[in-house]
């Protein structure tokens, strides 16, 4: 079978087009400000790709991806904040050498769990490890007890709520509702300059492609096939002797790892991390990025994240009132009218037309993974 190869020809073309878009066209066409903005959108694409695996392939809808995005982002922000809070920079505080918000909240000592974040390698490991650990605990607790579907969605959403309340409530340790702001340098390298932002954009792009390749590998592997089988007929997979829970835990952790990386890149490019990116609303918006792109397609997820965020920025710049209406309409439309998202529109409507115009009398195969089911 052709699809047993790592990538079909069509998929290679898709990857190349996306690479050209991210690495050549965007940097050439957009000014520095817009490029940084698109870099920010691409950090959401990490989450959307993870969701395409969890939800699209695995049928596990997590409404708590913002938690993992936030955990990754906070790990990065803690490192950057500690670097920015040298005793010299914070000499005016009553306790120099600790982050400013701790000083404002009458903390006189760095909490012990901040200590490891003085080291960049540990911080970088934590960016992936902390979300994965968290996802692992949730996954083991839920999937081994066969909690799934809507119950899983509601409980992950509760986690998003808990996380936000916790971060906002523990102002002295987390920076509260403002989050961790005023981040300056990474190992002495100023991340606020235009040049640094361009470099970070490309680092972000490379990481995104690494994530996409991992996702593609998972999709094409036996695991990917099992996921789809589990989504459609969980009991049959279980009766065939597979441990369904373990596969679910793995894919959920993988999605969390992707989200964590995205969060860290968000912190680096935007220069802050705050609870507004963790809670219920951003978490569910991340689902819509994936849904708009086409929940089965990992490349679609990237386009979905780009498109929705771009629409959000441009609409809320000019018509702030329309944006919520538009977003709400998008949620409804993506469910009612085109459940396979952009990828579905492409493979069902545009691609056959395109081939027709190009004069190829070749029948196009339907979307490789079939229609989504709950």
């Amino acid at each position, binding site marked *: 079978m052709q699809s047993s190869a790592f990538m079909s020809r069509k998929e290679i073309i898709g990857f190349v087009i996306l690479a050209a878009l991210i690495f050549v066209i965007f940097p050439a066409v957009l000014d520095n400000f817009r490029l940084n903005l698109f870099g920010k959108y691409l950090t959401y694409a990490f989450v959307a790709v993870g969701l395409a695996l969890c939800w699209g392939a695995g049928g596990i809808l997590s409404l708590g991806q913002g938690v993992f995005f936030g955990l990754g982002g906070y790990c990065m922000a803690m490192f950057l904040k500690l670097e920015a809070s040298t005793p010299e920079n914070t000499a005016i505080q009553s306790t120099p050498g600790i982050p400013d918000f701790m000083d404002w909240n009458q903390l006189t000592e760095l909490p012990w769990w901040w200590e490891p974040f003085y080291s960049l390698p540990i911080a970088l490991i934590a960016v992936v490890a902390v979300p994965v650990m968290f996802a692992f605990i949730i996954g083991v607790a839920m999937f081994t007890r066969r909690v799934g579907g809507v119950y899983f969605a509601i409980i992950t959403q509760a986690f998003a709520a808990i996380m936000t309340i916790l971060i906002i409530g523990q102002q002295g340790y987390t920076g509260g509702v403002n989050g961790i702001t005023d981040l300056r340098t990474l190992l002495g390298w100023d991340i606020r300059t235009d040049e640094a932002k361009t470099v970070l954009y490309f680092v972000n792009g490379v990481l995104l492609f690494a994530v996409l390749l991992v996702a593609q590998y998972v999709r094409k592997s036996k695991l990917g096939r099992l996921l789809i089988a589990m989504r459609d007929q969980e009991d049959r997979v279980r009766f065939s002797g597979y441990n369904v829970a373990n596969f679910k835990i793995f894919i959920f952790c993988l999605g969390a790892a992707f989200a964590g990386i995205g969060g860290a890149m968000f912190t680096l490019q935007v220069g802050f991390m705050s609870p507004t990116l963790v809670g219920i*609303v951003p978490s569910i918006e991340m689902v819509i990025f994936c849904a708009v792109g086409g929940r089965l397609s990992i490349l679609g997820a990237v386009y979905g994240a780009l498109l929705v965020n771009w629409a959000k920025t441009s609409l809320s710049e000019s018509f702030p*009132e329309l944006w919520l209406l538009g*977003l709400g309409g*998008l949620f409804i439309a993506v469910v009612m009218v085109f459940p396979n998202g952009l990828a579905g529109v492409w493979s069902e409507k545009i691609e056959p037309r395109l081939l027709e115009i190009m004069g190829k009398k070749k029948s196009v195969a339907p979307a490789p993974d079939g229609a989504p089911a709950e």
Partner: protein
Amino acid sequence: MFADYSMSELGAIFAMQGFAGLILFSVFVLMALGLAIIFGQMGVINMAHGEFMILGAYVTYLTSNLFGDYMPALFGTYFFVAMFLAFLASGALGLFVEWALIRHLYKRPLDTLLATWGLSLILQQIYRSVFGAREVGVTIPDWMMGSLPLTDLIEVPINGIFVMVLAVSISIAVYVMMFRSTWGKQVRAINQNRVMAGAVGINTEWTDRLTFGIGCGVAGVAGSAFTMIGSTGPTAGQLYIVDTFLVVVFGGAGSLLGTIASAFSISQAQSIMEFFLSGSMAKVLTLLVVVGILMIRPQGLFSLKLRK
């Protein structure tokens, strides 16, 4: 930490804190009842539930203004009219939403979740455009103001008592509807076996629509009651939605008694912990305990045994 208080003061603190918990309990019950009907009986995730409540609250606000302007003599009674109107408005919107949206998605529960979330965003924006972004409060009739002194140390606010009475009466009304009326019998039959229910002549489509409408109507009444203890803003509904879902899931979907029991335990736990910890930590701990219990017992406190 108790050393500074005398015995009677401690007793008063616990009594008042317990009463605050009871008000919270009533609020949870009111919020959860509509959802218990919609989610528990139909299995539909309605993320716009909070917005249906807010609709009821705004209807109450409009009614109170109307009575204030044109019928000041009857102002003391406006609330009962408002509650009825809130039920009608939210119920009508519910019927429409079921017809336009929900009925196409019964086979895809996760998609219902996303679509109703979209609906909630649209409703929020409409409220904001119509009523403004600022919170509005209603004028509470005189007889509901003030508090009843029970002893020297213990006082209970009258509007709190009113909300409690309301919660109890609506619970009883829902119970009667669910377990004593033809509609309730049909809903439960459909919940147990949709195909067989249809085969014996129950109009399942219409029953679904009515159920959704009644659930939304109850949410509207709940929203109406909330105006008595707080103000209403366009995004207030979103604050309630997680709590409400947890109450229903924790109680065991499909069990009315479970919903009330879980509302009671969650609200008491939260308000008692609020006395010892900060408000946010009490909330975090309560939610964590609930989620933890749900992980051990996913079917909730009370679960119906069903053959699916």
